[in-house]
């Protein structure tokens, strides 16, 4: 009798748990509000915006050239790719074609960024799930790549290296030699990472069958990059809308089958090998020549978007490049230009009114779209798996909040 009365009073209630924004496993300042039934997630609501810096608005007040250093700060792990994406977009707007050599250099740089970004993804993802060793080893290879960035452009993370119409300075012989040595070493290193986690039973149990998303759902959510390809959809901007030197190199787009955390991991590991292949081909095929297009705008282009004066030898003209002989070069109109960054498809939607500054600039950042897929992925999983799921969609909050 008493027993039944007690049981009548006992009820279970859902627990609302606030995860983040200062949680070490949320890869930045992502805040998730989880509704839990026991240990099972019933509902997950992501809140973004803690790292909002107004990059889109800031770039409206700058000419196309000065807005470039802002793009470094979108996804600070792969700043080179963002810059290349931005330059490709503005070049398409201006109708400038970068020289061959610059295209190859930019392709090399994008792929180096892809490797370093995927390495850091692997490191943090494995660390979240509990494999600490990979974290330590992968930073060794990343350091090599970042040293190479420093050798070329003088900065390690916020590179500002590409320029509208080419790149800022040429790569040196030592750079190419060292990078070639890297491409010879790197496949061995990938095998090392795989030895550590590929067959590890803890890793397999934490990743297989977790966060399954079907190809149809993935497309509907707007996922791109390896997160989409893990579900078996072969979509890659590098193949479908090639830019820079991608049409001239040979590479494959790896796809998964089941669309779970493990398949996405396999996809990214395979992409590391493909990026390595692309870099090798680019070094072998690297043409000679200039690295900046003749009609590329100068760094000191005035806001009206004028072409610079062709400098003559007299000193007074050489110092001051504002002149009546200039002509407007920024066309008006709006367009969208996608590029493939390590995280997925980074698109720039630019509305230009011909004034030399963008009237409106909008970024389609993969991290933002991927974060919006979290509720669907997390539903019905355990709390511990939420960490694995945040890792698998590979988000960087700097890019998500912009």
């Amino acid at each position: 009798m008493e027993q039944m009365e007690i049981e009548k009073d006992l009820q279970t209630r859902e627990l609302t748990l606030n995860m983040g924004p200062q949680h070490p496993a949320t890869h930045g300042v992502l805040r998730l509000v989880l509704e839990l039934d026991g240990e099972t997630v019933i509902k997950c609501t992501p809140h973004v915006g803690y790292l909002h810096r107004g990059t889109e608005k800031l770039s409206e007040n700058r000419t196309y050239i000065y807005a470039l250093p802002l793009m470094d700060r979108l996804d600070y792990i792969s700043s080179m790719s963002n810059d290349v994406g931005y330059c490709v977009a503005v070049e398409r707007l201006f109708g400038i074609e970068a020289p061959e050599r610059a295209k190859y250099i930019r392709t090399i740089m994008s792929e180096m960024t892809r490797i370093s970004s995927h390495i850091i993804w692997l490191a943090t993802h494995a660390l979240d799930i509990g494999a600490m060793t990979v974290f330590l080893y992968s930073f060794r290879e990343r350091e090599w790549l970042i040293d190479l960035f420093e050798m070329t452009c003088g900065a390690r993370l916020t590179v500002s290296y590409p320029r509208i119409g080419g790149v800022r300075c040429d790569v040196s012989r030592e750079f190419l030699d060292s990078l070639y040595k890297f491409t010879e070493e790197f496949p061995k290193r990938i095998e090392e990472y795989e030895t550590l986690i590929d067959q590890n039973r803890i890793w397999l149990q934490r990743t297989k069958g977790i966060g399954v998303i079907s190809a149809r759902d993935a497309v509907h959510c707007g996922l791109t990059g390896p997160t989409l390809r893990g579900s078996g959809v072969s979509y890659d901007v590098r193949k479908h809308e090639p830019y820079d030197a991608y049409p001239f190199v040979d590479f494959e787009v790896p796809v998964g089958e089941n669309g779970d955390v493990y398949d996405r991991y396999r996809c990214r590991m395979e992409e590391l090998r493909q990026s390595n292949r692309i870099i090798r081909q680019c070094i072998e095929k690297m043409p000679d020549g200039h690295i900046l297009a003749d009609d590329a705008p100068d760094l000191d282009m005035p806001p009206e978007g004028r072409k610079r004066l062709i400098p003559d030898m007299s000193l007074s003209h050489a110092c001051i490049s504002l002149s009546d002989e200039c002509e407007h070069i920024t066309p008006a109109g709006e367009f969208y230009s996608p590029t493939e960054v390590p995280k997925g498809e980074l698109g720039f939607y630019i509305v230009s009114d011909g004034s030399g500054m963008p009237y409106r600039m909008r970024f389609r950042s993969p991290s933002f779209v991927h974060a919006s897929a979290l509720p669907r992925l997390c539903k019905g999983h355990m709390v511990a798996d939420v960490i694995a799921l945040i890792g698998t969609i590979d988000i960087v909050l700097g890019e998500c909040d912009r």
Partner: protein
Amino acid sequence: MTLRDIAKKIFFLEIMKGLALTFRTMINHPVTRRYPKVKRDPFPGFRGRHAFVRDSETGREKCVACLKCSIVCPSRCIRIEYKETEGERILERYEIEALRCVFCGYCAEVCPVCALVLTEVYEYADYSREHFLFDRERLLKNWDDFSSGLKTDTYFNKFWRPEGIDIKRMPVGKRLQEPIPIKHEEKVL
């Protein structure tokens, strides 16, 4: 389940393989550096603290107050005041707010007389904000600090005349720029 699979399950083969790798790395040479004791030399062209090149003839900066650097600066952190006499600009005030700077190097690249440079100094943390407002004197002092630490006899920043860019695009001052000779003070024994 084959015998192999069972053996794998019982003896934790895959974990043993991973551990073997870890132990191998233990006897390798470490790749890390003990930072404050062992310093890392940045590559030439590293974009660090700003400096004004000290002209060996006048002993002052070479800046001609053309304002190009303050125009290109994406974070708008360069402030310049000048007065104009007989068509010549005399620099009166020059300030860089280093705390707002994003170290893009555009100012050094655009300067027509190669007066400004981003040196390879990266350790300049300080306790007060005033020390990061670089005025003319401080910028010149930065150069002295930097050049006294140089091991070579000449210095040429790679952003003054970036390699691979058509030299016709550059103003005369940049085309003719020679590497700056560095005077090392004789060590008195």
